[in-house]
């Protein structure tokens, strides 16, 4: 029974993190799939969202600025907006750069953002990070929440405490996973609606033939910046959710570009850029492969050790983390060559002219 619950909880955690990556991939899809913007600064924008959220929602702290103890929802909205504002500034400056250039510029900007979070110790506690970040649902079981409004309207501290103590200790986990999936769903619905709308049509036109789009009265530059901002705002939201999931963030490793930016790119390209469903599918697929491969690899190495009896497998075991990275690289090469347009390729909506 414990084992079953365990697998269920692991599955929920896969869904949660997969959902967070799905949001990142959806944001990137707006950048790249819709508008053709090669944004390689995902980690930086997610960090902006995560830090905004954390500084606003954590309880007061002597380590870093903020700790305003604001409600989680406000933190999420703020993460969404601040990421957008920063993207607007960057977008206006950088948007005319094309393809690889934009990629290199955004990587650079993401690194600068990280350096700021790392060095402005007064603001962010620097590399020591921010901890005790509230997590949706679970945070209600903390006294500072249930003893204040609105929860205190429904009962006093003791009865709330007793209520939470009576629940299984993972009561919040399905709710948290569902919350993330809810965000994915809402963003998906909105983006899908946008994609099928005149806006999506216009973005496709701009991507297909910029000159003609301009001659048809479309302000190409403004639209590009707009797509950049919208995608980045979604990444900011994902950052806020990641901060909740981890409950602790620090600038160096949490937002490591090779595990965040590149992984999200792999997800989008594998899933199918331009296709929202592809972005979500790719995110879950690659995250499942990434996370579950640790379990399989260890078993696999054991089997190798048993086959070649006496072979020293401890080296392989200690380096299995690198084998996983190798695996992801090979998956990427396979998908690129086998499914150059992604597993779910982009499809324009069927014409509406009846």
């Amino acid at each position, binding site marked *: 029974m414990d084992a079953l619950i365990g697998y269920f909880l692991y599955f929920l955690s896969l869904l949660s993190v997969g959902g967070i990556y799905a949001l990142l991939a959806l944001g990137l899809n707006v950048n790249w799939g819709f508008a053709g913007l090669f944004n390689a600064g995902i980690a930086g924008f997610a960090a902006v969202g995560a830090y905004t959220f954390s500084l606003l929602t954590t309880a007061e702290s002597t380590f870093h600025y903020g700790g305003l103890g604001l409600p989680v929802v406000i933190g999420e909205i703020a993460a969404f907006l601040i990421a957008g504002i920063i993207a607007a500034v960057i977008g206006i400056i950088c948007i005319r750069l094309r*393809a690889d*250039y934009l990629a*290199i510029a955004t990587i*650079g900007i993401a690194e600068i953002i990280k350096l700021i979070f790392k060095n402005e110790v007064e603001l962010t506690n620097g590399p020591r990070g921010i901890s005790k970040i509230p997590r949706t649902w679970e945070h209600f079981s903390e006294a500072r929440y249930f003893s204040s409004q609105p929860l205190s309207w429904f009962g006093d501290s003791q009865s709330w405490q007793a209520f939470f103590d009576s629940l299984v200790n993972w009561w919040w986990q399905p709710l948290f996973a569902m919350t993330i999936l809810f965000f994915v769903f809402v963003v998906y619905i909105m983006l899908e609606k946008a994609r099928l709308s005149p806006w999506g049509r216009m973005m496709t036109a701009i991507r297909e033939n910029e000159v003609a789009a301009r001659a048809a009265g479309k302000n190409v530059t403004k639209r590009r910046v707009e797509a950049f901002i919208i995608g980045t705002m979604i990444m900011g939201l994902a950052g806020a959710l990641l901060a909740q999931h981890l409950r602790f963030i620090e600038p160096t490793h949490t937002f490591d570009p090779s595990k965040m930016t590149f992984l999200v790119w*792999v997800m989008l390209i594998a899933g199918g850029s331009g296709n929202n469903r592809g972005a979500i599918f790719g995110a879950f697929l690659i995250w499942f492969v990434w996370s579950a491969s640790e379990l399989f690899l260890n078993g696999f190495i054991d089997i190798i050790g048993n086959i070649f009896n006496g072979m020293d497998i401890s080296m392989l075991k200690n380096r299995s983390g690198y084998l996983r990275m190798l695996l992801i690289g090979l998956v990427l090469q396979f998908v690129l060559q086998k499914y150059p347009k992604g597993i779910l390729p982009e499809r324009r909506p069927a014409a509406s002219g009846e």
Partner: protein
Amino acid sequence: MWDSFGFEFVNYYFVPGLVLGCIYALGAIGITLTFGILRFANFAHGEIMMTGAFLTWTFLELSKLIFGFYFHPLIACIPSIFIAIAIALSVDRFFYKPFRDSPTIMIVMASFGMMLIIRSLVQVIWGPNQITFVKGIAKPNGILRDLSGSFDMMLLVPSKHVFIILGTVIIMLAFNYMLTKTRIGKAMRAVSDSPDLAKVTGIDVEQVIRATWYVGGFCAVMAGVFMAMDTQFIMSTMGFRMLLPMFAAAILGGIGRPFGAVLGGLVIGFAEELSAYPWFGNGPLLSPGYKSGVAFSILVVMLIFRPSGILKGRVF
């Protein structure tokens, strides 16, 4: 004892900046060549550099094992250059060539993938740990010190730096000779100018691409070995750490302009080292914590105000 160093700026800021610049410059040559000739940003370039350094270390150890003493790294790197070039060529053949006519993003993604694959292979084979490349402390080169001493100066430059700077100069001269005097070098410039025209002129573009990997691979290994000689250790993440500054150098100098890359490398190297110089007051100008931001900032500013680079390279 500190006050005795009259030549402080040159010894501790200028020469280190120059050395770093040389290493960046060599790496940036490969990047700018692939950017100019194959038209994509090769994210795996830093890994070739790192692999070259690891191979060189392996040959150093082999030399100790077989001959009983360590060769100089500049000798031990010769076989690793060939291996690294072979790696670069086979990566091109199997992972880049299928995307020659595809949108750029495909080949850039493929190079992302290669970056992960090469690095993790190195980590699986050699392990993730830091490996000592050369032991000990490099004392200032005596000849140079005495020589400069007779001019009332004090040049405290370790021999390894003399090697690196001279080596880079020699490679640059050889490279210049190749680009302006040899047939294949001219063809590389031609393809960089216009691949379409090169094709209809009858130039064997695939041969030129192979030559690009030869030159890029050679320069990358040299950069990796110089870097290893300077830091005296090697690590599997050294390539990625160098990648962004090298990109910055390539763009700064102007894409497709090898000498721009050299210039860009030097600028970035100097800027990084000099950002910590106490230009005003006693403290460093910029907190060293922001050091790696210097290259990125220069890069971003450059992209915005002069995307064609110092030497007016190509803008896509």
